[in-house]
């Protein structure tokens, strides 16, 4: 309803810039953080940026089809899977080492 009452749409490039900043914020966090949960949060940011791009490309470039929409769905579903497993691993790491930081995990098996 909000969209249909308005004449001038937001340019596509604005969406892309937003998702770009989000993506590289995620990259920065991924590289600088030691905490496993923070790394996971950064990954979520990157995935979200990708989702926005899918949706925007779908709406602006190929409005007749729904590929972008479905790719975004599947990305979200995979993000959910990844988070579930990653958090299980993090909790296990915490039990093992007493904290959740990457530096502890040098070897897979002791």
């Amino acid at each position, binding site marked *: 309803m*909000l*969209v*249909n009452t*308005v004449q001038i*749409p*937001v*340019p*596509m*490039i604005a*969406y892309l*810039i937003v998702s*770009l*900043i*989000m993506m*590289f*914020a*995620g*990259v*920065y966090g991924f*590289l*600088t*953080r*030691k*905490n496993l*949960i*923070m790394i996971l*949060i*950064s990954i*979520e*940011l990157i995935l*979200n940026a990708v*989702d926005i791009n899918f*949706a*925007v490309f779908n*709406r*602006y*470039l190929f*409005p007749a089809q*729904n*590929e972008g*929409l*479905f790719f975004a769905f*599947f990305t*979200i*579903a*995979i*993000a*959910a*899977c990844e*988070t*579930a*497993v990653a*958090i*299980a691993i*993090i*909790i296990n790491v*915490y039990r*093992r080492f007493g904290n*959740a930081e990457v530096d502890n995990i040098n070897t897979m098996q*002791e």
Partner: protein
Amino acid sequence: MAEQIIFYILAIVIVVFSILAVSSKLVIRSATYLLFVLIATAGLYLLLNFHYLFAVQIAVYAGGIMVLFIMAIFLTHKPGATMNQRMSWKVKSSAALAVSGLLISGYIIIKNVVKVAGYLKGDELSMQDLGHSMMGTQKYQYLLPFEVISVLLLACIVGAILIARKETGNDPKENVKDK
């Protein structure tokens, strides 16, 4: 007009909170900032008339993943504990990397996207169409990926339970060594 105002508010929220999310010292605050980013992203989907995607984003991210995150933080952190940062040269170099990547990609986008500024006002997808394309087997229909995703989800649930499960009985460390 109204659409643009809403978009710029959401854009500012996304930019500010995504930068805060990766630079905050407290992990729980990072998670909260991430939540704001996710909700604003959902707002963008609403603005693009992807209502179903909006609801999926809210339900899965805000209702599922964020609760998981917060629970994990509860289990693995003390309240008020700050996190260690990496060494400063590493921070500087990764910041430089991120900014340079941002600049390069931004340059490419600005250079190229102006050419393709077509926008067709799409209406909200009807749920019937969505259901048909999700459950169909023809071209541009996604039954197979859908099923694959569901199997993946099942595998993930089983795997997560298996990994996070506490071994009953003895000391968990001994049990791990036995294996």
